[in-house]
């Protein structure tokens, strides 16, 4: 099933009330700021800020963690692999059949930890950024931020038709199963699924024509407008100042750190 990032989009929290345009820009800035850090303490600070934001947004942590599984699976290998090397540069710890595994040393562990923490922080910040208003409002906010109209339209329509096509593919998948098809790791499986997907594409082209016809018959002449209006108030600016200010602060701290304690990879 397609994700429900916006399952908790209607909770009553200050972040939910925050104008989505401001929220997007501010948290986006914060994500960039955290990713640009190379100091473990500051990255941890960034992570704490992410946790605080999630907490304020009232989105349950269990939900956040369950949605972060994928990221864990991707970044964990980094954490495990980076500290070790097959080149003969570090402290040899094991060797099998001519291949030597050696330990790079504590800096590399710290480096790996930093990568993992940054990746997790960035993903965690997506929740207060995107998960606090319905996806369609978020897409409208992109328009409010003056992204190219065609691109915004693509986001809106793609998001809408993901669900339609997902249903369509689910039904095809069930039709396959109900005729004795079982996914195995063989060529037959691959070609069969490829054909089912090909059919999805052929049907999608036809659907696209029909959608376009329907739009035309409702007077579409190239641009799309909606009634939705965003009204930014004082509180929106204050929130933005707070989060962006924090993002800048992190960078300032990083700059000082670069002069002050450079070379000593932090001292946790």
């Amino acid at each position, binding site marked *: 099933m397609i994700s429900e990032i916006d399952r908790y989009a209607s909770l009553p929290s200050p972040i939910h009330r925050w104008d989505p345009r401001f929220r997007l820009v501010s948290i986006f800035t914060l994500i960039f700021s955290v990713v640009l850090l190379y100091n473990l303490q500051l990255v941890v600070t960034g992570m704490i800020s992410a946790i605080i934001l999630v907490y304020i947004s009232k989105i349950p942590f269990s939900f956040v963690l369950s949605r972060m599984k994928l990221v864990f699976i991707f970044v964990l290998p980094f954490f495990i692999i980076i500290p070790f090397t097959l080149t003969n540069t570090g402290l040899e710890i094991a060797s099998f059949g001519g291949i030597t595994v050696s330990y790079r040393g504590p800096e590399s562990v710290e480096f790996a930890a930093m990568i993992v923490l940054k990746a997790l922080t960035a993903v965690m910040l997506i929740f207060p950024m995107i998960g606090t208003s*319905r996806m369609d409002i978020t897409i409208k906010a992109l328009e409010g931020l003056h992204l190219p109209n065609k691109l915004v339209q693509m986001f809106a329509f793609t998001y809408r038709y993901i669900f339609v096509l997902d249903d369509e593919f689910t039904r095809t998948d069930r039709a396959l199963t109900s005729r004795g098809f079982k996914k195995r790791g063989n060529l037959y499986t691959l070609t069969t699924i490829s054909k089912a997907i090909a059919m999805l594409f052929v049907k999608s082209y036809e659907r696209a024509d029909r959608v376009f*016809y*329907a739009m035309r018959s*409702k007077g*579409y002449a190239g641009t799309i407008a909606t009634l939705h209006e965003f009204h930014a108030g004082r509180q929106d600016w204050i929130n933005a100042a707070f989060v962006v200010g924090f993002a800048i602060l992190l960078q300032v701290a990083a700059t000082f750190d670069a002069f002050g304690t450079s070379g000593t990879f932090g001292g946790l």
Partner: protein
Amino acid sequence: MAATSTEIAIHVSDLNYTYPDGTVALEQVSFEIERGESVALVGPNGAGKSTLLLHLNGILHSRKSRGAIEILGDPIDPKKVHEMPKKIGIVFQDPDDMLFMPLLGDDVAFGPINLGVEKVEVKRRVAASLERVGLAGYENRVSHHLSGGEKKRAAIATVLSMEPEIIAMDEPTANLDPKSRAELIEILKTLKSEGKTLIIVTHDVNAIPELADRVIVLHRTIVADGTTREVFSDTEMLLAAGLEVPTIMQFFEVLQAFGYPCNVLPLSIEGAVSNLTETIENGDGHIHLHIHEHTHSEVDLARSKYQHHHHAARMRDIYNESETGAAH
């Protein structure tokens, strides 16, 4: 409801259309619809009904079709297709094709906004259109969470909000359960009584008598065009086009074989009630039904007409049977 003025809503003359892949979909199609009429457009699968609807607001057009269609007096200008919805709105068969915006409110507002309607008025129209189809307050619902019947009605609302003079619908009652179907028919009847010009494409012959004054049968070209009664009386033509008459009409043919005296077959249960009342009143307060010599062969003949599958074979059997029957 009869046309309130004799102005022509739709004028189609010698319309031809061939799809790029060579499928000839429409050939020499000509007809005229007056303002305020409500017309059922019927025809077998693949007859070109949907193709015809798409021509009515200029979405499909070809060199050959230029000038063939006039809507409310003006020929369609392919460059001004986006202005057509002021005059004619089309409800597509699959509501998922019409509900492309994230929120239902946006879908309903889409048309009026494109037509340059003012914001306050758009809002009013959105609310009013949703109300009309029984979805008041659904502005902030997400389309993909609506049920099939709700989507159908929502699709109609997206067209109503443009307040077109003419509304064309492609199989509005398909896939609905009987209750939703009845509700939808009710919505269409209201539109009709408000004087909208309606074109309803449908396979649902039992719904036609309630909805339409006139039936056009399309099978690549116009095969028949007349009042609902006229068209449904021409059984031969209907069967050749793979169509059927309403159940009640079929049943009254049977009743005739039992000696029921009527020369105008009713089309719906409501029609049947008046027909019975009238016949009884003309017949001194009662009607006799009885079985006469040919009743059964007549019944079989009346029934066999509608056995599309082996029409010819059955006709043969029936004749043999009626011969032996007569020999009794």
